[in-house]
Structure formats: structure tokens, C-alpha cells
């Protein structure tokens, strides 16, 4: 069979000692960096790209891919242990992971999240391998109208998960979109809301927004407390998941994997949205939704599996179409071209060894992550035995320098500090910043596609309802929304102030 032969060739390429080493380095570095809040996969890949110049094409891609999914996975570690998402996709893992940690079950939560990542990775890997050859024309069906509908879906889906009223969510989305609009208008080249500040004329630094709203806000909130240990009692007995954890988890893992694999394929959606929708789906399907936000293991493994599956199927649009599906993928694309390979439909036919080698290395990398992460969990647990005030100067230092390094701009640190203040304000007012941060990322896509859709549709706003694909997406979104609002009103009432409950000392 052609497909199996190609896959075998892929493993042959990926299993050379040299490539195994690159895979190991990538997964290790990615995990180490992903654990640090404020430094996500995008920053890491961007920082390490210079290292790959002197490496063979396949080796450098394998290493960067390892960093990417390693960081994706490790972000959950800090989410569970510190209530600090390592990067955006692990925001939701905080919701139930951290309460679990407070119950002394951090070890089990981490182990289950590692296992769910691995399972999701394996399945998504099979999907990438099997579907890539057929997928390019499906993604081609996405034009401005479909993109716009998808992004609207992304924003509204994210709002389902938050505990806020619809008005609050919409307001937070619009603030995020405004922040995303800062800088130069990508279409006309005019500056917007830059106030003469050079580093704003290029648009806001996303890392600065994330660090300000999450890392800084969190640290300020905790600064009064002396040690995390007082908030959570860790013990190693909890490291091994219970039988109950496993029986509760296997279905959410599979559901999350299916959802994430599907979402990852669409450009613009990705690990973050998948994890958000994965969470809301689990909550929706749960027999006892009130457990969510208080340490439900399903709330950890579902989104985790969805995020990791999406992180891997994300490679499909990039490798087959050359469309980077997110910021990290855009940088990966750059790495591909540094090696003189033009992404697009030609990659699979012109460079089969690279394509299948990379795909095979994803599976090997996931296996490595499993082997690497479980023994290291003890290390992370021990790290948290440290008093909090010892922990946060290095966290702030790494976050600040990470923010600075994006553009070598001190203003970005100031900007992050300002957003820290805004984040404090939101926390006081009990508004969840997640829809805001998603909006910042999606703004250029949303605005440009809205613009194009209006040009093509002659200013007819109803094009979004006339186009079958976008109508389908919007109807689906509305259905989910109505279902959730009407049938589960009690859940919303229950989730109100979920964040605050999660933060109360156990």
C-alpha cells in the first residue's frame, strides 16, 4: 500500500540516531521552556531558529516541531501547579487542574494530562498521516466569508466557557479586537492608535499581552501570601492516577482528541480554541456539571487532549497549503523556507522524505514526551515547595526578558505592566480575560476577511448567511449557544465566579 510505504519511509528517516537526537532536544527544550510562564512556543521557536541554520532541513524541522508540541504540552504543567497558563492553550487547564492540585492531586492531574496528550498525539498523528494527501482541497474551500464565520464561531465558543454574561463577553471581545487593531492597518498601511510610539506602530506584542494579563496579574494577586505550599498540600502519593480517574477520563480523552483533530485542520482555530471548546463540551456532557471548576479530572484531560491533537493536526494546512494556522506555525513556515523548501502542495511530492519523516517524528516525539514528563513531574512538584516570594522574581524576570526579546523593545515591558494593571481591574470586577486575549490574536484575520467578504459581496452583510459553509458554521454556533443558554441555565449560574471559587484556599 502506498500510504503504509510512505509511513515506513518516514519512520526510517526519523529513526536515524541524528534525527532521534534532534527530536529529543526539541521535546526537552520545548518542555523546559513551556513550563515557564510568559515564554510560549512562539517565542521559543523564534529564539531558536538561528540554531537551525547549520542543521539539515529535516533535522531542524523535527527539532522545531518538538519544541512546538513540547511547549504546548508543558504549558499545562504550570497551569495545574501554579494556576498560570504556560501559553494560551493551557488557560482552561487552570480551571480544573489547579483545584485538583489544591486537593493534593497535582501529581495525578499532571500524569493524566500527560497520558491524554500522548493518546491525542497518537491519534492526531494517524490522522495527519492518513488525511494530508486529501485535505488540501477542503481547506481551499475556505474563503473570506468562511473565515469570518469561523472566527466569529471561535470568539463565541470561547464565551460559552466563561462565566460572564453575554454583554460582558462581547465587551471583552471588543476590547481585545481594539487592542489587536493597534498598529498599522495591514490593508491600507495607515497607523492606528499608535500614539507615536514606535513599537506600537507594528502592532501590540502578543507575548506582552499574555504576560501582562496572566503572569503579572497572578503574581500581584498572590504576592500577599507567603508560600504556595500553604495553598496546596502536595504529596507524591497522588502521582499515580486512580482507577476512578482512568474510568472517568477515557471518554473525554477520545472526545477531546476527535474535536481537537477536527479543529486543528482549520486555519485560525487551533490548540487554544480546541481546548476551550473541549472544556465546554465536557462540561456540557457531564452528568454532574457542578464538579467543574472544583477539580474535575474530565476538565483537565478533555481540553488537554483537544489542544494536543489540534497542535499536531495544525501541521496539515501548513504542510499541504503553506497556510500558517497560527503564530507558531508561521514561524515554522519560515524555518521551512530557510531550508529552501517552498511550502505548498509541492512539499509532499517534491520532498517526501521530509514530509513523512516529520510526521513520523511527531509520534516519536510524543512518546518521548510521555517518558520525559512523568519522571520530571516530581521535579515540578518539588519546585513548588519553594516559598512563593522566592519563585516570582525569576518568573517576572523571565517574563520581562521574554517580552523584551520579541522586538528588543523596553516599551513592550511597560505595555505588559499596563496590561497587568488592566488585568487587576478585570479581576476586581470579576471579568474573565480569556475572550479578550483570543480577540487580540484573531483581530487581523477577522478584520481583513470581513473587509474582503464585503468587497466580494458588494457590501451585502447577508453574504454570511447566503454562503452555505459559513451559514452552517454560524448555525452550529448558534445552536450550541442556544442549547447552552437555555437548557443549562443552571450551569451558568453555578459557574458564575468560578474563577474566584477556584482561587479560594482549600
Amino acid at each position, binding site marked *: 500500500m502506498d500510504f503504509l510505504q510512505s509511513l515506513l519511509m518516514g519512520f526510517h528517516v526519523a529513526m536515524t540516531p541524528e534525527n532521534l537526537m534532534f527530536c529529543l532536544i526539541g521535546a526537552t527544550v520545548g518542555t523546559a521552556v513551556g513550563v515557564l510562564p510568559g515564554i510560549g512556543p512562539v517565542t521559543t521557536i523564534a*529564539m531558536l531558529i538561528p540554531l537551525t541554520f547549520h542543521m539539515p532541513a529535516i533535522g531542524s524541522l523535527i527539532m522545531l516541531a518538538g519544541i512546538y508540541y513540547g511547549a504546548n504540552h508543558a504549558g499545562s504543567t504550570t497551569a495545574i501547579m501554579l494556576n498560570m497558563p504556560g501559553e494560551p492553550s493551557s488557560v482552561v487547564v487552570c480551571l480544573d487542574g489547579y483545584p485538583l492540585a489544591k486537593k493534593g492531586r497535582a501529581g495525578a492531574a499532571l500524569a493524566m494530562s500527560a497520558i491524554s496528550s500522548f493518546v491525542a498525539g497518537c491519534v492526531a498523528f494517524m490522522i495527519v498521516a492518513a488525511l494530508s494527501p486529501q485535505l488540501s482541497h477542503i481547506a481551499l474551500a475556505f474563503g473570506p466569508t468562511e473565515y469570518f464565520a469561523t472566527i466569529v464561531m471561535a470568539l463565541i465558543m470561547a464565551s460559552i466557557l466563561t462565566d460572564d*454574561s453575554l*454583554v*460582558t463577553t*462581547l*465587551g471583552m471581545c*471588543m*476590547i481585545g*479586537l*481594539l487592542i489587536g*487593531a493597534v498598529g498599522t*492597518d495591514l*490593508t*491600507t498601511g*495607515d*497607523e*492606528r*492608535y499608535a500614539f507615536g510610539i514606535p513599537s506600537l506602530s507594528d502592532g501590540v506584542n502578543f507575548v506582552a499581552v499574555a504576560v501582562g494579563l496572566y503572569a*503579572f496579574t497572578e*503574581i*500581584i494577586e498572590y*504576592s*500577599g501570601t507567603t508560600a504556595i505550599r500553604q495553598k496546596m498540600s502536595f504529596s507524591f502519593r497522588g502521582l499515580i492516577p486512580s482507577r476512578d480517574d482512568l474510568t472517568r477520563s477515557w471518554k473525554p480523552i477520545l472526545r477531546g482528541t476527535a474535536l481537537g483533530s477536527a479543529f486543528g485542520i482549520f486555519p485560525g482555530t487551533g490548540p487554544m480554541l480546541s481546548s476551550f471548546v473541549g472544556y465546554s463540551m465536557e462540561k456540557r456532557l457531564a452528568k454532574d456539571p457542578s464538579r467543574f471548576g472544583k477539580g474535575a479530572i474530565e476538565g483537565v484531560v478533555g481540553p488537554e487532549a483537544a489542544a494536543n491533537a489540534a497542535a499536531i493536526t495544525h501541521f496539515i494546512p501548513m504542510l499541504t497549503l503553506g497556510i500558517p494556522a497560527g503564530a507558531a506555525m508561521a514561524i515554522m513556515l519560515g524555518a521551512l523556507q530557510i531550508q529552501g523548501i517552498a511550502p505548498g502542495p509541492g512539499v509532499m511530492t517534491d520532498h517526501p522524505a521530509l514530509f513523512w519523516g516529520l510526521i513520523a517524528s511527531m509520534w516519536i516525539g510524543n512518546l518521548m514526551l510521555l517518558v520525559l514528563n512523568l519522571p520530571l513531574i516530581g521535579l515540578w512538584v518539588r519546585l513548588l515547595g519553594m516559598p512563593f*516570594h*522566592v519563585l*516570582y*522574581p*525569576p518568573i*517576572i*524576570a*523571565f517574563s*520581562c*526578558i521574554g517580552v*523584551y*526579546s520579541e522586538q*528588543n523593545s*523596553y*516599551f513592550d*515591558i*511597560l505595555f*505588559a*505592566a499596563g496590561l*497587568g*494593571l488592566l488585568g*487587576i*481591574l478585570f*479581576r*476586581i*470586577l*470579576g*471579568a474573565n480575560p480569556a475572550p479578550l486575549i483570543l480577540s487580540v490574536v484573531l483581530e487581523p484575520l477577522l*478584520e481583513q476577511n*470581513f*473587509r474582503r467578504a*464585503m*468587497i466580494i459581496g*458588494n*457590501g451585502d*452583510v447577508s453574504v454570511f448567511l447566503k454562503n452555505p459553509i459559513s451559514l452552517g458554521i454560524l448555525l452550529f454556533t448558534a445552536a450550541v449557544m442556544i442549547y447552552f443558554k437555555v437548557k443549562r441555565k443552571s450551569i451558568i449560574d453555578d459557574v458564575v465566579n468560578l474563577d*474566584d471559587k477556584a482561587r479560594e484556599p482549600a
Partner: protein
Amino acid sequence: MLQIQNIRQFWLGVLFGVIGLIALWELPRPIGTLTAMGPGYFPMLLGIGLVLAGAASIVIGIRSHSHTEVEPLSLVPTFFIISGIVAMALLIDRAGLAVSLLFMVLGTCYDRVLKHPIEVAVIYIAVLGMTWGVFLHLIKLPIKLFW
């Protein structure tokens, strides 16, 4: 006497409204039309949307029956930690990593500097060593160690 019940929703509404008005006040020009949008068109939609969301939020806040309270916040740590970060931002180009980190650590460890000066010094040296090793030595970021 008007008693605002849902005080969070009310103040969020004020915040939305203010941000919306700033966006409209500073609106980039030209605005353009629906089929030929200028740089200001989309921000205009957002500004109007925010003002509307703000107004709705204020009305809900006043008329709501569910009572909320504003989370208490200690101003002191907010002030010192943000000051530490701001000091680091302002100094990193001019004074280098060592000095800017010193101010950051002093700000974030404000409550322990006087009580446990040696501990803070150890934290400072450890943080400096770590950041120097990772960012300057390993990744070779263009940051000076000293001025």
C-alpha cells in the same frame, strides 16, 4: 436612593464605555465605506459596539437583582510590583541587565528587603545568574550585562 446591586456589571459597563469613547475619539481616518473600508471603519464598529455594551452593562448593573461585590485588592503589592517591572523596563536598555534586575527584585520583594536582606540578595544573584546564562550566554540576546 438608588442602590446599585450588581456593582461589578455596573463598573464593567463604565470601563467598556470609556474605552469605546476613547476608540471613537481617536478614530483613525479615513473611515471609508462598507465596500471600501478605510483604517477607521472596523475600529468605528468596535467603538460603537463597546459604547452600546457599556450602556447595556450599566443598565443591567443598576436593575439587576443579583448582588455582587467588588473583590478587595491590596494596593501596596500592586504598586510595588508594577513599579519594579516599570523600573526594569526603563533601565534595561540604559543600565543593562544587572541594574534593571536589581530594581525589579527590590520592587517585587518589597516586603522582605528590610526584614531579610540577605535572602533578597541571594534571590537577586540567583535570578541574575539564571537570566545571564539563558538569555545572554546561551541565546545571545542583545542585552548588555552592565551599562
